[in-house]
């Protein structure tokens, strides 16, 4: 699903975020990308989304080489990647239902498909009853569930989460992890970048540990370490 070969990213000011990364993530895997803040986890996620370009190396997502992908094709790449962030990125003036529906509206899905798909995914994340609430009427965990619903509503083959539990208390975080796990079992490849030690340790999934831009450990059924 994701393949990186010799990927480096150097930001202006000679700040090295990623250094010669080689990695393979297979279809259907559940992977934690761990490491302290500022070790290149977000850079990793942004590279896959082609929000930024690598300074060196090649990145393949679902068999396609990203540097050869024109600007106008990037949106179609992103339709295959669901995205979840620490700050949820919900629109405050839209209800849960509308926030999720928005993701389908802007890619031109017909209305009847939107209605059934949104209801279904809200049921999956456990928010069917709160579909008419606005984000400020929901708890942090519930807001993150809305954002996961939005990321998954289109059933993308790949789901990326960048510090999804950063703003959420530990008990709620575990619920979110179970949700990611359920999504993973539906066939979607899940990559979660996090520095939430407890969560990683309790899940026993593949762990890729980054430190100062390098992969220092890649372990199946691993723990956070150190």
């Amino acid at each position: 699903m994701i393949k990186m070969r010799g990927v480096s990213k150097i930001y202006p000011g000679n700040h090295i975020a990623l250094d010669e990364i080689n990695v393979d993530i297979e279809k259907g895997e559940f992977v934690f990308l761990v490491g302290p803040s500022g070790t290149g986890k977000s850079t990793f996620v942004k590279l896959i989304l082609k929000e930024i370009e690598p300074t060196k190396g090649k990145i393949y997502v679902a068999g396609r080489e990203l540097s050869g992908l024109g600007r106008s094709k990037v949106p179609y790449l992103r339709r295959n990647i669901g995205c979840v962030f620490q700050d949820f990125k919900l629109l405050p003036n839209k209800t849960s239902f509308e926030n999720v529906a928005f993701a389908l509206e802007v890619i031109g899905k017909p209305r009847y498909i939107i209605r059934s798909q949104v209801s279904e995914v809200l049921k999956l994340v456990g928010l069917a009853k709160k579909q008419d609430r606005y984000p400020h009427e929901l708890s942090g965990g519930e807001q993150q569930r809305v954002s996961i619903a939005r990321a998954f509503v289109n059933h993308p083959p790949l789901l990326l989460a960048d510090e999804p539990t950063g703003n959420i208390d530990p008990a709620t975080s575990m619920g979110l992890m179970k949700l990611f796990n359920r999504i993973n079992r539906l066939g979607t490849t899940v990559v979660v970048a996090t520095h939430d030690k407890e969560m990683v340790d309790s899940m026993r999934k593949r762990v890729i540990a980054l430190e100062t831009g390098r992969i220092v450990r890649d372990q199946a059924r691993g723990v956070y370490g150190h």
Partner: protein
Amino acid sequence: MINSVSYYVKEALVSFKRNGVMSIAAISTVAISLFFIGFFVILAMIFNTKFGHLETEANVSVYLKETVTTDQTTGLQKTILSMKEVESAKYISKGEALKRFKTRMKDSPGLLDALSGNPLPASFEVKFKEEFRTPDSVDKLRDRLKNKEEVDEIIGQEVVKRLFAIASVARWIFVTVIGLLCFAAITLIVNAIRLAIYARRKEIEIMRLVGASNWFIRWPFIIEGMTSGLIGAFTATLLLLIANSQLFQRVENIVPFLSFSVDQTNFVYIVLSLFIVGMLIGAIGSGLALRKFLRI
């Protein structure tokens, strides 16, 4: 597809309302620029219909005194024709001059009634050979005829020349002013769109994340810019209609022999071009704003 179009238009209108002041500033500037363009084009049209023919018609007229005799006239014609620069020298009798004047002024019959007798002088219409159509030739002709007492006045092309010189200066000033106004209009539209993009930055971020196509994100802003341009053009048209009825036609009533108006067809063409220019200004403005503030 229909869904998308109505979405674009709806979004454009919402954003329009949200940035009221900026949009109004942009529209006003477009309106003023387009009004000036229209106004000057109308002036230029009037100018061309009034004076344009002077360039191609008789190069020089030699007006004769009232007292001139037929012999003198024939002699004068020979003198003129003997110059190597001259191609022809056509005699225009007093009667012929009056007839021409009447045809030219047929739109203002009142003026003709005021004429008693025939005040117009006889003249020679001197046409120079192609290669000699210069002020020099006029000077030579003037030299040759300066001792002839039957000649009253020589009106040469320098009058026309001066007129066209003034016109070309006016044209440069006009082009500069219009250029600056268009620049201001585009800048204001860029600003209005920038604000619109800023107001929707969160939505745009999410749209990009979930894979909305670039054009889907761009259209509402382009429509907003072009709408500003079109409303500006519409306003300019209203202003021009007012100017036409209040100014040009009033001038025409005061000075009847200067027909100071543009015919309907030309007016329609002008208005159409204003709408096209307005739309272009809007499109260029939003295009620049998108390039600068929406990196997709």
